[in-house]
């Protein structure tokens, strides 16, 4: 199963909301994915095994996994485009 990592500052607030939305919206597109969330300060341990990161913060440049901005999942503005980006990276 494809895996998505949701990243925010605390790992419990915005990432929880975004994980919820991403799961729901991808399910609507017929995609079943595994979603985890973490705080950005934990990212130094790497993000091995994930296909795409959705983040509301800057992600360290050492992470070589594609990153999609998570804010559209909060505001609803530009969410379809963000989903398209996530889906494209999952397909890669």
């Amino acid at each position: 199963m494809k895996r998505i990592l949701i990243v925010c500052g605390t790992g419990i607030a915005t990432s929880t909301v975004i994980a919820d939305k991403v799961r729901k919206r991808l399910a609507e597109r017929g995609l079943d994915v595994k979603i985890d969330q973490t705080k950005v300060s934990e990212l130094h341990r790497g993000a091995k095994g994930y296909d795409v990161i959705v983040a509301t913060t800057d992600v360290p440049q050492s992470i070589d996994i594609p990153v999609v901005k998570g804010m559209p999942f909060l505001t609803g503005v530009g969410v379809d485009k963000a989903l398209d980006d996530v889906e494209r990276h999952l397909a890669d």
Partner: protein
Amino acid sequence: MIEPAFVRVGLRAADWEDALRQLSAELQSAGHVTSDHAQAVVDRELRYPTGLPGERYGVAIPHADPEYTALAGIGVATLAEPVSFRMMGDADEEVAVSVVVMLALQDAEAQLAMLRQLAELIADGDRLADIAQATGPDDIRAVLSAIDEEQS
């Protein structure tokens, strides 16, 4: 529905930090956060800004780590004049914020329902506008109490 710890209409704030300190004080007097929460929420806003451009009104969702929370909850305030916050995920950008929702967070599951409802509010331009244009606390409480988790 969301039961807020407090609501404030037309808060006067000199800048984002002033707004955060005033709202933290409200959360503290309602018993939701510790006395060092104000500095923690300001520090966190500097590192991870929370301004979000909504459809019509900017909203900010400042919060600190769970260690500063005594009791999970949210406080909602509208600002008399919009205040500039830095944008979540793009700290070079600024957002004129009219509505501030301050979160007192605890770990994970306990607050999932609250976060879902909050998400619905933030993504709903009409509801956010109703809050931004509120003329009294009851207007805000009415919007919050009409939020249904199932719709999110």
